[in-house]
């Protein structure tokens, strides 16, 4: 009996201190809608519906601005080949130098690597290679031609590795760009 009374008193006191107002309902509704949009985007909403519908476009824009529009496919469904880019620069006196862009800044290297991963998309290759070449020619102004060589590193499976196979680099894009 005492317990029931205590609970009722506690409940009444709690309610007197705190009542749900329309403002609470609104913000809770906004929060739920926001999470629903985040869940839909995480489930690849745009892939099942197409990006052209106005509602989906609106949701995508909302997601882009608030961070509710992300997919979370880190290292999924599979880990791809590592890609590196080597630049061979030639000057007018026939001297050449081979450079890589990666330096001592590990965080910057990570981002360069993330850019290079786009070389695995065939359609992106020519444009990206051109952009990289243009950057290198600007960075090394004494040179008039740059050869962009994109190489992929294939890591054998664990079983093949035990059998003696080793990771191999193989070029998949070699292109020369000239200074205009």
């Amino acid at each position, binding site marked *: 009996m005492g317990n029931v009374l205590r609970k009722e008193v506690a409940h009444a006191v709690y309610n007197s201190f705190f009542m749900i107002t329309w403002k*609470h309902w609104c913000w*809770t509704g906004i929060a739920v809608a926001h999470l629903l949009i985040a869940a839909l985007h995480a489930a690849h909403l745009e892939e099942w519906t197409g990006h052209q519908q106005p509602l989906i476009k609106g949701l995508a824009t909302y997601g882009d601005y608030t961070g509710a529009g992300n997919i979370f496919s880190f*290292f999924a469904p599979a880990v791809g080949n590592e890609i590196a880019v080597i630049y061979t620069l030639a000057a007018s006196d026939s001297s050449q130098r081979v450079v890589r862009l990666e330096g001592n800044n590990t965080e*910057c290297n990570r*981002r360069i690597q993330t850019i290079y991963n786009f070389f695995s998309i065939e359609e992106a290759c020519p444009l*990206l290679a051109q*952009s990289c070449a243009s950057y290198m020619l600007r960075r090394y102004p004494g040179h008039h031609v740059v050869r962009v060589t994109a190489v992929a590193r294939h890591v054998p499976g664990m079983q093949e590795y*035990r059998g003696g196979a080793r990771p191999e680099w193989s070029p998949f894009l070699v292109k020369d760009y000239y200074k205009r």
Partner: protein
Amino acid sequence: MNTFTHTWQAFFLAPSSSRPLVFFRIAITLLGLSQGIWLAGDAILLYGEQGLVQWPISEGIVGAHMPQLSWLKSLATATHLSTDKWVFILLFVYLAALTGLLAGKCIRVMALVAWALHFMLMNTGFMAAYGVETFMHIGLCYCIVMPVKRGAADSAWNTLSIRVLQLHLCIVYLASGIEKSMGIQWWNGEAIWQTLMHTQFSRFDMSWLSEYPWLARLICWSTLLVEIGYPVYMWFRPLRLYGYLAVVLLHLGIAICMGLELFGAAMIIFSTAAFGWPYVTAAWHRFVQWRKGFSRAFAATSCYETV
């Protein structure tokens, strides 16, 4: 009040402390400052008009309606300053806004400025962005709307904000786990093997792992369990502490073995603010008590020795 309203209220709106949110603001801001300072020297390479990925390419990918640094072109022309100089100016303003946010001054304005500039930088460097940008963006957006100010009284808004963080994280981990589970590499252990054999991630020689495929499988399965199980163990109180520790260990492992320190830190910050704060404070109080006890014992011993 009906049961639904009561449950809804108890879950989303029962008053609670703002401390986890204050921690969230401070930690996210420190992360942003570290990232900004770390990358400042290479800002032109990553975000410049004539950087590794030139502005027209980024614009083509993210769309012209998204805030990006190419919007600065007219400003650069009007001010007779190069776009590269404007990149540095904006980076400086971004870091200043983060400093203001860290200090707790004009929180919403600072968060808004930091979020907007981070969004511009992220869109411009879209091809260079990875997980840490995603979570910085989410974090800064939440700092604009959530009550992240220090010293705020217990309120329903704190609980609502923490619930949003908690549920958002459940979505993130579940989605990430399901996406991984769709690849065969995460079932046969090849995913962790391939990752650790990448020269960009390998900090140590991990080729010995090929001799222990069961260990690679175990690491992959554990990752799937931690990610897919996140919404289950984080809401089941008796398992929450162990789940939180597993998440922290997973991200520490990623930071140490793969060099993804900023990403690891971002995920630990999110999980700590959402679920781990009570455990962190309890551990801290226990440490303080232990230190006091140790100091007292040490003082007593010193007195005895002096006498």
